[in-house]
């Protein structure tokens, strides 16, 4: 790879992109303890319990995103300084990930210190503040990047510094992050669902002037490649990211840590997840990864309790079972359907308690999980709208331009409600009979819980 005016150091071999080149500054950042920590945070948490090869980490993903962001920047003719910043932002975009990647996000969102941290606006999430905070404060990084450079990188990730095009490269419907993780997760899971023609997609990217800013768009020649990319995202969601066992393991980790904080009073977990924006929090956060957390919880010094019990089950692959699964749209009563869809969080605890009591299972070990699979059409959008395709110099939305996606525009997103619990099925016949019993009982419980709570889950 050659980019005029850029001095590369040695290359890194990557199974997805071949050689990944980096500058000496990027190499120094990669060598910091801050970045090296990502080697111990798996990209897909415990997905290796389903796909044994899925042991890849945020480390190689971040290198891949930097590499692709550089290719996008080159294709779009960004100037040297913007190209440099986009690559750095891509390299650091996941630096704040905690143990088990996305699983930690939900826990931080629940336990952050509300007195010291105010909820960020513009759809920002609490866990993103950890990434920004680390980039701004980490000592090893501050020796390599000036304060102004770090401010620009954080601004670029937030979308409040630089042209919108820069943000689109690191976070948008066509961003380098997705372009990397689809191929990488597919490769390491051993599936073919996430494969698309990466070189062709990048080759057909264009810049569109949208009012007073620039937007990443695709030329009309790239529509079929884009279809492939959007379908790859859809299939990876349905086949890998929402795989039944993966949902169960993520839910078990989350519940174990929540109970570890709330019921087992494990001080080290409270400190880890009570984000308060202080130096002490950030220093402590960096000491934890998948392995350290699992070992600490399972060690003798952690007292017996819910958390340890669940983590032991995970370590032995003695997983909870799915005892209920339903498309929310299939619930009989329309009011219950709508309120479960809209207000599930306020009914969740009550449903778990009632199910536990009814089936004689410890209620804290009953986990209800509502999740959404967006329609294949929605996969091509993000929160600000559709991907735009340049046709005869003017923009049209991807869904309008693609014959394939136009023909499936009636597709809707699906919401599901599942319940997991530590039950044992003797054999497939036993499973079938008991699942049928559970199904009837749980539907009745859901209906009763919703009908008893007139507003927002408050009696």
């Amino acid at each position, binding site marked *: 790879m050659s980019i005029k005016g850029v001095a590369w150091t040695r290359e890194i071999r990557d199974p997805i992109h071949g050689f990944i080149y980096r500058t000496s500054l990027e190499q120094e950042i990669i060598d910091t303890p801050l970045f090296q920590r990502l080697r111990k945070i798996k990209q897909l948490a415990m997905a290796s319990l389903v796909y044994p090869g899925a042991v890849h980490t945020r480390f190689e993903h971040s290198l891949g995103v930097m590499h692709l962001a550089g290719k996008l920047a080159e294709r779009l003719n960004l100037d040297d300084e913007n190209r440099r910043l986009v690559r750095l932002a891509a390299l650091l975009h996941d630096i704040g990930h905690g143990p088990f990647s996305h699983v930690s996000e939900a826990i931080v969102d629940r336990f952050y210190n509300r007195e010291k941290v105010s909820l960020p606006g513009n759809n920002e999430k609490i866990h993103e503040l950890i990434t920004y905070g680390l980039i701004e404060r980490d000592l090893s990084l501050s020796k390599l990047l000036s304060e102004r450079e770090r401010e620009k990188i954080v601004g670029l990730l937030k979308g409040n510094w630089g042209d919108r095009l820069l943000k689109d490269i690191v976070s948008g419907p066509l961003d380098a992050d997705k372009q990397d993780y689809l191929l990488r997760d597919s490769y390491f899971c051993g599936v073919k669902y996430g494969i698309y023609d990466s070189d062709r997609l990048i080759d057909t990217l264009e810049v569109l002037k*949208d009012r007073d800013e620039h937007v990443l768009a695709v030329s009309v020649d790239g529509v079929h490649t884009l279809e492939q990319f959007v379908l790859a995202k859809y299939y990876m969601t349905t086949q890998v990211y929402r795989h039944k066992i993966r949902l169960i393991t993520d839910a078990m980790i989350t519940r174990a840590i929540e109970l570890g904080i709330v019921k087992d009073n494990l001080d080290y977990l409270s400190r880890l997840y009570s984000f308060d924006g202080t130096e002490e929090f950030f220093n402590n956060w960096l000491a934890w990864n998948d392995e350290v957390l699992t070992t600490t919880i399972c060690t003798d010094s952690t007292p017996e309790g819910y958390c340890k019990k669940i983590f032991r089950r995970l370590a032995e692959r003695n997983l909870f079972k799915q005892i209920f699964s339903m498309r929310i749209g299939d619930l009989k009563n329309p009011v219950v359907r709508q309120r479960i869809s809209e207000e599930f969080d306020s009914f969740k605890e009550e449903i778990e308690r009632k199910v536990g009591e009814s089936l004689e299972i410890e209620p804290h070990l009953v986990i209800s999980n509502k999740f959404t699979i967006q329609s294949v059409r929605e996969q091509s959008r993000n*929160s600000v*709208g559709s991907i735009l395709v340049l046709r005869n110099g003017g923009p049209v939305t991807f869904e309008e331009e693609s014959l394939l996606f136009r023909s499936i525009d009636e597709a809707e997103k699906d919401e599901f409600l599942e319940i997991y619990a530590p039950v044992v099925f003797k054999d497939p016949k036993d499973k079938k009979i008991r699942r049928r019993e559970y199904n009837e009982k749980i539907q009745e419980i859901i209906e009763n819980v919703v009908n008893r709570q007139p507003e927002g889950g408050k009696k």
Partner: protein
Amino acid sequence: MKPSEIFLLMLSAAGGKISSKTLVQKRAYFLNLLLELGLFYKPHYYGPYSPDLDAAIGQCKALGLVEQKTIGFGMDRGTGFEVRRFDFVLTPDGQAVLDDLKKRKPFECRKVLEGLTKLSAAGDSDYVSLSVAAKTFHILKESKRPLYPDEIINEAKQLGWEISQESIEHAVNFLAKLGLVTKN
């Protein structure tokens, strides 16, 4: 109020059917301005657009509360695209959810329905006019000073929007009736 509830109330106020997704978006845009409902709007390439509302429409369809009908009008010779319109119809299940909502949140529902009546009285039935009014309002808000119609048209051109003199007058009258702008 949640975006899906606003959408269902809009359908209810319109007699159970709204023709055109753009009309839903633009009507909700002005309702949001009047009542500060907290809908997030992005000044999109095609004018103000709420991804939250779009997601809520999809959600209502997935839950069987609303039915979407696609009406085709043949090919547009200029673009080669089929011209289509999406009609949304409240289903009996949607009506049941609305009845329940009106019992649980009577005050909020009344407020939204009153806002919709005010929009209707100002003349909100045509999505093209509403679209121009939304763009006009956006330009006036951004300028932070009074503008003449010609200035609005020029400003719109800068943003890639084509607005005629006649439609500006209509839009300004609509905005004035809602108390969002004053005519000097």
